[in-house]
């Protein structure tokens, strides 16, 4: 009994002392912003999964970890759990020409806005997606902004608005792998009676989005805005 008393006493002593707060402050800053096309001024559409990644390093530490943020489908981003301090920002995977590394950038306490005005690899214009009988037909124009091959173009379908190359129930994709100078119009279609498209259930509403990817390491798809269609 005496032993048990000591045991309880020691346990209490240990557990009461283990809950001391550490001496670091919590996140105190918010960063948000958007990616804008340097010519049209429009937001640059993204993949939310495995799309453009904002890489950043908090300065002032030895061996700092490389962190990353993802970008929302519409081309905006936000991180509410940042620490105020100095940062480097850079890009390795993106659907635009990576801007020069942003060094020694100060994030202050409270809200910060950091927009990026960049040149998308490909501009997709004039996109029209419609249901035509048993087909979903998409017409759009692809205009690369760099002299590099276009790797592929695609029409993607999913029940979520984040539809794209990374999130799709079915797709109609063409591998191009050639140079497009100026711009070129394409028509893609999904045959709703084909084996793959049977995942789309008649009467339900789905999102469709067209996109194209440049043939550059780390490049992600560029998109036109998604369209909602009931099939």
């Amino acid at each position: 009994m005496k032993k048990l008393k000591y045991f309880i006493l020691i346990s209490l002593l240990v557990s009461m002392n283990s809950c001391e707060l550490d001496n670091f402050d919590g996140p105190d800053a918010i960063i948000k912003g958007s990616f804008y096309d340097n010519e049209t001024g429009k937001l640059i559409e993204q993949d939310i999964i495995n799309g453009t990644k904002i890489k950043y390093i908090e300065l002032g530490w030895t061996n700092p970890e490389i962190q990353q943020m993802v970008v929302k489908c519409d081309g905006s981003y936000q991180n509410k759990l940042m620490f105020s301090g100095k940062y480097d920002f850079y890009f390795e995977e993106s659907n635009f020409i990576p801007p020069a590394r942003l060094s020694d950038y100060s994030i202050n306490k409270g809200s910060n806005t950091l927009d990026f005005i960049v040149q998308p690899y490909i501009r997709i214009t004039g996109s029209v997606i419609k249901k035509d009988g048993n087909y979903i037909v998409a017409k759009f124009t692809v205009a690369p902004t760099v002299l590099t091959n276009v790797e592929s173009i695609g029409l993607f379908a999913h029940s979520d608005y984040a539809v794209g190359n990374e999130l799709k129930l079915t797709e109609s994709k063409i591998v191009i792998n050639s140079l497009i100078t100026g711009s070129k119009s394409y028509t893609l279609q999904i045959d709703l009676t084909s084996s793959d498209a049977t995942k789309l259930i008649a009467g339900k509403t789905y999102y469709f989005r067209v996109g194209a990817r440049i043939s550059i390491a780390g490049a992600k798809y560029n998109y036109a805005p998604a369209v909602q269609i009931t099939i």
Partner: protein
Amino acid sequence: MKNTIKILPVVVSVFFILNSCSDWLEVENKNIISTEALLSTDEGIEAYMASFYHFLPIEDFMYYFSTGEFRYTGNIGGEMNASVTQDMIHSEWGNFDSEDQNAHAYWNAGYEYIYKINKLKEVIPTMHPSDSTMLKTIKGEAAFFSAYTYFQLAKRYGGVSLIKEAQAFNGDYEAVKVPRSTEKVTWNYVLDLCNEAIENLPDENGKRATKWAALALKSRAMLYAASIAKFWDNAPLVGTAVSYQLVGGMSAEDRDRYYQACIDASAQIIRSGKFGLYKPNPADREEATENYRKIFSNPQVAAIEVIFSKSYNYPGLAHSMGAWHEPNQLSKQYGGRADITLDMVDAYENIDENGNGSFNSKVKTRQSGNENYNGIGNNINDFIRYENPLDIFKDKDPRLAATVILPFSTWKGTKIIIQGGLVKADKSYAWLQNEKYTQNGVDYYGLGAANESQYSGWVKALSNGTITGFLLKKFLPDGDDQNQNQVTTDYIDFRYAEILLNYAEALAESNLTAPEDIIDAKTALNMSRHRAGFTDNIDATPDNVQHERRIELAVEYTRPWDNVRRRQSHLQFNGSYQRSALIPLLDLSGSTPAYIFVRSILNEPGGAKIYRERDYYRIIPGIASNGLIQNPGY
């Protein structure tokens, strides 16, 4: 007396202290064999070497890709390498080797093994075998182990730290850190090690590594390196590791050098005449099927084709190959885990009565010829009625029936019932459920029988039924094979058929020419087809070579790596593709019962798979402490 007692401990202590610095107290421990004693007898050396074979990273029946562990004796659940390809799917688990940072993880275990090999290299000069030529063999074996291990590391991580001798650790961590070499330097090192092994290993060495095993390793590894050099741009990556060429960065000249090394090594094996295909000239299709099946059910009978294989022992180290894979009707506990897909079955060529092949080989299910559909839909009248359900496969490559347990075929004396439903007289149907239906006083069941133990498809208990309509036959031995960690069928690591196809691929993918004194690429490519009963010859185009690899090496452990080295995994598993099943239904709507077969896209466990391009190189663990540059994308 009292004083003596007091003083005695002091005297004894002093005695020991004074004597502790001389060696007469050092007695050899008779319970432990000293290194010197071990290495001075042939038996001792053999025992020491056996441990290296034990740890050799062979991706065999006991390799578990989800954790990267070799010799895995835990609950492997019947997972095979092939279940991450389009050719097979697991009946229950959705394990995949992309977006899983534990998949194929071999960094730590690999370097532990390399440390042991480096220690071995150190003690070779102190060995005293009765036959001194054995030292040369052991030197060759050490190079073979190193080459094998660095090949496994390079496959997973690209350029790695090359540690060529055992490191002494004296407390200074900085002194033992070795930065990564470029991917090119790493492959060159694998090539050098292969050459060192080839030079030192003998022609015959029992089950141990021979010169031929080293040549086969060189053939496989160099084909891998060449493919990376050729196809890297199909899935380019960015990041620090790329800028330092720790991954990628190989030129067209490197590519040709590696292809040439593959051709040279393969040619040396072909030229030697020591190996051949097992029974290359079958009398008929049935014989061709049986010959091919035998190679895997009992590799020892096919010794002519086996260049290097792994044996097991029970008690000792044994695997669970059949314990997870026999059809539900035969299973003692588990079964039916490895389900061959319809995609794979479709890929098998058709063969006509004269032995001519045809790549137009999708199995025929519909009268209209439309094979691009999913499920019955409203086309129930369009399906072809087969009175004998095996007729749908009767024109297939004979290797199909040796690789796959087909629905309603006989396996180990039992007719394997794989039925996914039935069509009633009024054309309504039961789909994937065991509905009872009585016609003319006879009871029929949707899944083929009243009791679940009497059929093998879409079984509820323990996920023991196939979900594709097909089951694995390849690798299953005759006789009892159902006790976990007690199965002892040999695993063939290198066989002659692969060498022929490596040779054909290296020639087909490059502008290099075949050596004049041996067979050309086309002959090499068609040898395994002829063994399967074909009489025609297909051209050695890159596509034809890949097709033949897919069939001849079907669901073998090298298959996912063929997709990785050729950078096509991300195109195959792109987030919308799902594997397919062929579902047989008993059709009772006609005057006589018959079977119809329905194509159906599977709901994959865990959803449609995506192979991420970054997963062509795996994550390196412990970057914070080992200071290495991480692979791209992690």
